[in-house]
């Protein structure tokens, strides 16, 4: 047991799998001696060698292409893309190959790989370093998209993602890399994929979120509690495929829902959740589903980034609108 923050939890999960499965390799830029720009792979190269913790040339298409090839040989490649802003040149390989290798060969070849990337804003990073474009991956068939929001979930979900027999995009909310510490038992126990985590139970309203925004959402729930409003908080965690069962059951109970995410609103994952709530929950919805999200703008440079990102206040005002709706 040790007190661990989110990025350390990532490191521990990687170390565990490298240690227990000789077919796991890591690859990415600056992940070796440098330990990754956020130190997620700190110390792993010296422990597991340059052959398994691979510093690659500066070429993202190559990295994910290699992962597809490695995976076809049964090697579980865990890729680090330095920032989500540099993930776009990997989309071709993800959508044209990784997601469909099993399908197109009718199971002859598979693609057990993980595409890790820090994502999101809020750390005063330079241009292109604050992207939240998870919806692009969530639209791809044949994939899982997993986003942890705490050290414990980072540890357990990353283990599950590496062990998953299909490709997983694992997005790490870098704003909360060092926000919070939790005790992690380093026993290699995975958490389940494909299910939401209900972080707080409540009866009056359901707040649905993922990634760093879970923290603002929890704070909003706390404030609502002060007003004697009991909010249920759901961390979606696996945003593809969606565990709508849990979300629908909650909204059936509360009748009201606010979805909170940092990504741009239009065609974000929030739209899918809202659409399904409207389709399957119309009878029990007591108020329109609200989305509190980033805007449909380019993520501004850092002086304005706080205006871009959803605030506790915005969540509260959406929640109040939903609660007051008659």
């Amino acid at each position, binding site marked *: 047991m040790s007190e661990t923050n989110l990025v350390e939890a990532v490191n521990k999960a990687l170390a565990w799998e490298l240690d227990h499965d000789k077919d796991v390799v890591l690859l990415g830029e600056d992940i070796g001696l440098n330990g990754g720009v956020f130190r997620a792979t700190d110390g792993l190269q010296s422990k597991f060698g340059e052959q398994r913790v691979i510093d*690659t040339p500066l070429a993202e298409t*190559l990295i994910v292409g*290699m992962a597809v090839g490695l995976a*076809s*040989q049964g090697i579980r490649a865990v890729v680090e893309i330095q920032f989500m802003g540099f993930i776009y040149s990997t989309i071709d390989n993800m959508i044209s190959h990784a997601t469909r290798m099993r*399908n197109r060969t009718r199971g002859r*070849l598979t693609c057990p790989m993980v595409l890790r990337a820090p994502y999101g804003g809020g750390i005063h990073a330079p241009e292109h370093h604050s992207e939240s474009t998870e919806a692009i991956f969530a639209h791809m068939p*044949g994939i899982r998209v997993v986003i942890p929001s705490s050290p414990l979930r980072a540890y357990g979900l990353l283990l599950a993602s590496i062990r998953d027999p299909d490709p997983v995009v694992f997005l790490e909310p870098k704003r909360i890399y060092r926000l919070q510490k939790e005790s992690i038992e380093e026993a290699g126990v995975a958490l389940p994929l494909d299910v939401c985590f209900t972080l707080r139970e409540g009866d009056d309203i359901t707040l649905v979120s993922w990634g760093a925004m879970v923290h603002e959402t929890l704070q909003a729930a706390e404030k609502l509690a002060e007003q004697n409003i009991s909010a249920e908080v759901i961390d979606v965690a696996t945003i593809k495929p969606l565990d*709508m069962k849990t979300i629908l059951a909650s909204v059936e109970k509360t009748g009201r829902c606010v979805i909170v995410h940092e990504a741009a609103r239009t065609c974000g994952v929030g739209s899918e959740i809202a659409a399904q709530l409207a389709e399957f929950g119309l009878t029990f919805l007591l108020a329109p589903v609200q989305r509190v999200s980033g805007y449909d703008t380019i993520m501004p440079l850092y002086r304005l980034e706080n205006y871009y990102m959803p605030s506790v206040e915005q969540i509260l005002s959406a929640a109040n609108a939903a609660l007051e709706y008659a």
Partner: protein
Amino acid sequence: MGVYDNLNIPYSQYLDHHGQLHETCSDYTSDAKNLINFYKIMLRTRVFDQKAINLQRTGKLGTYASSLGQEAIGVALGAAMHANDVLAPTYRDYAVQLSRGIKMSDLLLYWGGDERGMDYEFSREDLPICVPIATHTCHAVGIAYAMKLRKQPRVMVCIIGDGATSKGDFYEALNAAGVWQLPVIFIINNNQWAISLPRDKQSATKTLAQKAVAAEIYAEQVDGNDVIACYERMHEFIERARTGGGPCLLEAISYRLSDHTTADDAQRYRSPADVEAQWQFDPISRLKTYLLENQFIDAEALDALQKQAEQEVEEQVKIYLNTATQPPEAMFDYLYETLPEALQSQRDEVMRKGKKHE
């Protein structure tokens, strides 16, 4: 005239287009049995190819990419590779695929719109046909990395076209192969055309082989219509890579005698006379001349081979035509190892749709 004319990329030709041999063959290609085998597979490939085009023309097959005139490259490669080496082919590499035991019926199934055509019975680690140009070059590097990591005496072979050499993927792959000295061979089937774009508009380079200079990878050119030269160079490259010699690149110069695919009409962009003139370099006739002139085979035996090829193709076509379509829910059955619950209702939906259409 290029900037790097003094580069002197080696070029090999053993058998010229008159069927005359100019170099000393290795034991392997001195053995008539092996040459006859080359001939056999080239022939099978060509008969298959013609049949596939006919099937397409009569509505029994989807769009099909012909390999006409480029059979030597694949047959040589098939002979030079070991069974447990791995191949990353394009959509025009039937010759090597057939050499590696991929069934004609599977190739037809693929072009006939059925994913089961990629579930090969042999060479099961080979990648399926790659349509997004050059993307498989990076997969090949990953596979070669796996081989090296596991210290296996295996070699990865990746084939691309001349057009593919313009794509960044190719270069990223070459560079990485050079950095890690991986056991991977890149073969460029330079058939002079990328659909309608002629070779000289694809790149200003005098050779495509010299692109390997950008990764410090050894490269050569070979007459891609000369199955003997192809075999000799490929064999050497592959065995060198197998014993730790690192990556190589081979540009095999050939010509696309067919339209790009059955959906293409090459007369829009090149003259039939130009194509006609290229027939004199046909890889099959030159080997035939050589075999006959050296009495390695006689006309009768050649006839028998032709019949045998036709018969095999007919049988395979029958298998293809008799393969029932998958049920609609098959589109969900290999999407994930276990279908996520969230998708179960969609699978049910398409099953109902299937029932209605029955």
